[in-house]
């Protein structure tokens, strides 16, 4: 506390941080030799995929890595105070008071049994910031500070009664209530809708301008582009690249950073590969670069020896033996093909006409989830449905799947009635003919066609029986093959189609990674050779690099197998990458529809414009997010932005054979 407070002394110094966890008899090194500093009012962003050690690094700074961990560092100091030497009570005095923490998803990160006001008041009470009589008043002002409207009313509500954005604001209010100088934000916008996430990012930016230091943790490079001064990229417990944000984003030197940047689906990436494919590599030795197995530039030296930091500039390092600027010899992103124009517009596969559905809310009022929605899905077409949570996307999906009966309207599948509201008028007439036509469509009539329409969901784990093996999960959907051995062969074939090796057959869902689970879900959906797959947020729970692989896989499958996709997502970038046509939903209505390029370049509805403006992207800018993105949208409808990475133009002659070689490569990796 009494350390000299020179203005240029960094507030936070982390040097050679190691964190190991004891799991059973095994020791896992979660963080290896991580070093960085953070000055007052500065924002450092740590990016990496799940398991890269970024959250553990943040937890170390607040002393909450848990009992099974060992933390060691050459230096770990906050404002001149040695954090490694702190006792329990000393930590408690720092937590909340001088260093705050914000996690993702306030629904579970705030105590769901306590009012928002009580949660914001807690740090004030613990650290005795104000006397008892003033706590209520201070809570109101903190809630107002983070932009919660009507704080008097909101403070008495519980987290589940607030919208996602308000909840997250309340969580931030509780983290900053005691006035900490450093805020650790661990995936603060991950569970939020785009427009809401943009608002939360703006709030964090305001806090930073107010002089607070920010350590931002995210798996998504795009999120931090407008906010971070410096970016550290973590992979497998190591910081592989660190530097000023515009340098790391504009001139990435580590192959992993480049792969991460390329994995963000953006306008210019349409029709190209998001994921990086690597030819089969021998495994890296224990002392080698952990990224070697996924790196296209890896050589024997990479596999044997951990790289030393290569100085690109004074403040820009990359932990790589080959910190080249542009991998000229092998472009990261290849074109699949010249986006083969969907031949002639196919026949109509699904026709949704005037569908409405309402539900009873918990408070007894009726909530119109879907209002008068109509659209058509043609054979082999990819139709994107975009909208924020609560816009009715999932309800539409369930009606299309015939899992939910609409209150009004009809759904026709391949020309046949598929799902419809009960025609009460015809029923009331009572005549036999009317009765027959007005009869609701029963599941028994649908069952015969069920195999033609399949679904994949956001959380495949929840759609698998946890006790089933992969073979049984996929085999269950192979309906036309009865013999065990043939069936297994078909399952292996399906797994190969989604890029999974046959040795996963005996695994159970819990033993698979998130990406593997989603691939199994896709294999299961493909098993009965469907005409259409309804994808409900299939990538929103995945890391950017895994998301890229799944999106590539879905794109290839759609083109190769001619499966139509009804692709639902809240992420316009994802939708843009996959779909041919787009449907924008808001409050249960379709507010805009049209061809992809048309909607993206000339959005008509104000809401579509707002959605487009809210997309965060990995372009360094200090402007508020919305203005920056408007510029982006204007600057490059379907081409690269000036500051963005250069896009290789698609070779005009790339043929299908090329595509297939390429696709099987991706899948094998």
């Amino acid at each position, binding site marked *: 506390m009494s350390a000299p407070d020179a203005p240029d002394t960094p507030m936070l110094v982390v040097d050679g941080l190691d964190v190991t966890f004891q799991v059973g008899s095994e020791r896992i090194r979660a963080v290896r030799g991580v070093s960085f500093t953070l000055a007052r009012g500065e924002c450092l962003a740590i990016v990496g995929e799940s398991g890269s050690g970024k959250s553990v690094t943040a*937890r170390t700074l*607040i002393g*909450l890595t848990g009992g099974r961990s060992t933390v060691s560092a050459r230096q770990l100091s906050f404002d001149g105070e040695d954090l490694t030497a702190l006792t*329990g*009570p000393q930590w*408690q*005095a*720092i*937590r*909340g*008071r001088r*260093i*705050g*923490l914000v*996690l993702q*998803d306030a629904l*579970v*990160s*705030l*105590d*769901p*049994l*306590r*009012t928002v*006001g*009580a949660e914001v*008041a*807690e*740090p004030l009470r*613990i*650290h005795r910031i104000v006397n*008892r*009589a*003033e*706590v*209520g*008043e201070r*809570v*109101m002002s903190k809630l107002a500070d983070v932009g919660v409207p*009507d704080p*008097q*009313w909101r*403070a*008495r509500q*519980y987290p*589940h*009664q607030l919208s996602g954005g308000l909840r997250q604001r309340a*969580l931030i209010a*509780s*983290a900053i209530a*005691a006035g900490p100088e450093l805020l650790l934000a661990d995936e603060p916008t991950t569970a939020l809708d785009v427009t809401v996430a943009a608002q939360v990012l703006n709030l964090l930016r305001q806090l930073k301008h107010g002089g607070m230091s920010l350590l931002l943790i995210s798996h998504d490079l795009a999120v931090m582009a407008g906010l971070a001064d410096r970016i550290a990229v973590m992979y497998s417990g190591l910081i592989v690249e660190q530097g000023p944000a515009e340098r790391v984003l504009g001139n990435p030197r580590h192959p992993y950073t480049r792969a991460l940047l390329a994995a963000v689906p953006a306008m210019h990436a349409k029709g190209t590969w998001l994921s990086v494919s690597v030819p089969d590599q021998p495994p890296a030795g224990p002392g080698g670069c952990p990224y070697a197995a996924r790196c296209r530039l890896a050589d024997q030296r990479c596999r044997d020896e951990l790289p030393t930091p290569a100085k690109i500039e004074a403040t820009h390092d990359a932990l790589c033996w080959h910190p080249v600027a542009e991998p000229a010899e092998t472009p990261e992103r290849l074109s699949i093909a010249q986006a083969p124009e969907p031949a002639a517009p196919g026949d109509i596969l699904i026709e949704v006409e005037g569908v409405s559905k309402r539900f*009873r*809310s*918990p*408070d*007894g009022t009726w909530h119109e989830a879907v209002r008068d929605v109509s659209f058509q899905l043609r054979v082999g077409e990819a139709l994107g449905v975009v909208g924020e949570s609560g816009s009715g996307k999932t309800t539409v999906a369930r009606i299309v799947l015939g899992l939910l009966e609409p209150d009004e309207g009809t759904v026709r599948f391949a020309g046949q009635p598929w799902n419809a509201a009960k025609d009460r008028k015809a029923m009331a007439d009572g005549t036999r003919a009317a009765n027959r036509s007005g009869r609701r469509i029963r599941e028994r009539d649908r069952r015969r066609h069920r195999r033609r329409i399949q679904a994949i969901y956001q959380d495949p784990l929840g759609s698998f029986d946890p006790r089933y093996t992969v073979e049984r999960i996929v085999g269950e959907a192979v309906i036309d093959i009865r013999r065990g051995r043939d069936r297994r062969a078909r399952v292996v074939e399906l797994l190969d189609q989604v890029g999974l090796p046959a040795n996963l057959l005996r695994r159970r869902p819990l033993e698979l990674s998130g990406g593997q689970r989603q691939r199994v879900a896709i294999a299961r959906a493909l098993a009965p050779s469907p005409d259409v797959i309804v994808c409900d947020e299939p990538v929103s729970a995945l890391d950017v690099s895994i998301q890229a692989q799944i999106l590539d896989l879905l794109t290839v499958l759609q083109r190769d197998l001619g499966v139509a996709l009804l692709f639902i997502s809240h992420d316009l970038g994802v939708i843009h990458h996959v779909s041919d046509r787009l449907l924008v939903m808001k409050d249960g209505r379709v507010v805009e529809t049209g061809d992809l390029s048309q909607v993206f370049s000339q959005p008509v509805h104000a809401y579509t414009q707002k959605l487009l403006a809210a997309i965060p992207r990995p372009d360094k800018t200090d402007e508020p997010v919305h203005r920056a993105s408007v510029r982006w949208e204007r600057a490059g409808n379907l081409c690269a932005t000036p500051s963005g990475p250069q896009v290789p133009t698609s070779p005009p002659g790339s043929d299908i054979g090329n595509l297939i070689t390429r696709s099987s490569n991706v899948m094998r990796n």
Partner: protein
Amino acid sequence: MTLSRDPGNHLRPPLFGGRTLTRRRTPVRGRALLRSAAKRFAAGATVMLGSATLAFTALQLVPGDPVAVLLGPTTSASPQVRAQIRTEYGFDRPVPVRFAHYLGDLVRGDLGTSYQLQQPVTKLINDQLWPTVQLVAAAVALAVVIAVVSAMTTAGRRPSLRAAATVWELVALSTPPFWLGIMLLTVFSFRLRIFPVAGAQSVSSLVLPAVTLALSVAGVLAQVLREGLEAALAQPFVVTARARGLSRTAVRVRHAFRHAAAPVLTLTGWLTGTLLGGAVLIETVFARPGIGSLTLQAVTSRDLPVVMGVVLLSAFAVVLIFTVVDLLHLAIDPRLRTAAAAI
């Protein structure tokens, strides 16, 4: 309650202290609670009517002449006397009329007269009920205290500490209560002479039976509570709370405990119901009066009005306990309130 009507008022007493918990209730929430209380009351009344009907039906289906039962196997009476008794007790009237009378008596709080003891059933039950209620209440309170201490101090702590707690709980819940009761009597009453051997006259006579009943219950409750605590401590909000500067103990007391309490509450309600009926064994060991011994006598001597009274009493106790448990659930978990208001 009036505070929330003027949301513009910034200067007002603290609203977020533990002591002012009730003041935070908004009128809307209070109404939801009241409404669900009313619904539960109606449901309870329905259950009571159902049990009364079932008890009455069972009585009609019991074989044999009620007058013979009433008189006992040894008494011989002339047909005139029998007819007189029949008229006096109303056995000659048609079943629906008797049912209506029976219900009317019930509403007035009249459970009839015991065949054997010739006393009003309400008085009999009243005399015997309170010792049992005292015993069960003391035992449950003690069990909850023991369980909370055992679980709160050991949940999520060192494996050795946890293992030790689990072992004592397993021993406690698998010890037969009557054996434990005899052991406690031998040590504390006969050898050390600290507590009386029998009876229900003083508070000190309550100690040994209550401890006997409480230990096994405490073992079960502690295990459930620890499991709940450990699940709650694994939640993200615990990290948030710790990051605010809360100590481990404070997180347990202020956050995790409330989350872990719900299943324990349900189990406690269920166990209380079981104990009210099951205390008879311990009451016998300690020679205490109680509803259990009254029931036993009534069943063996076919004293049907008493049996029916006890049946209704049990139904009432269960309804009462679970109404209280449900309302406590609503108080603990605000998420249930919105759901309850919608039903």
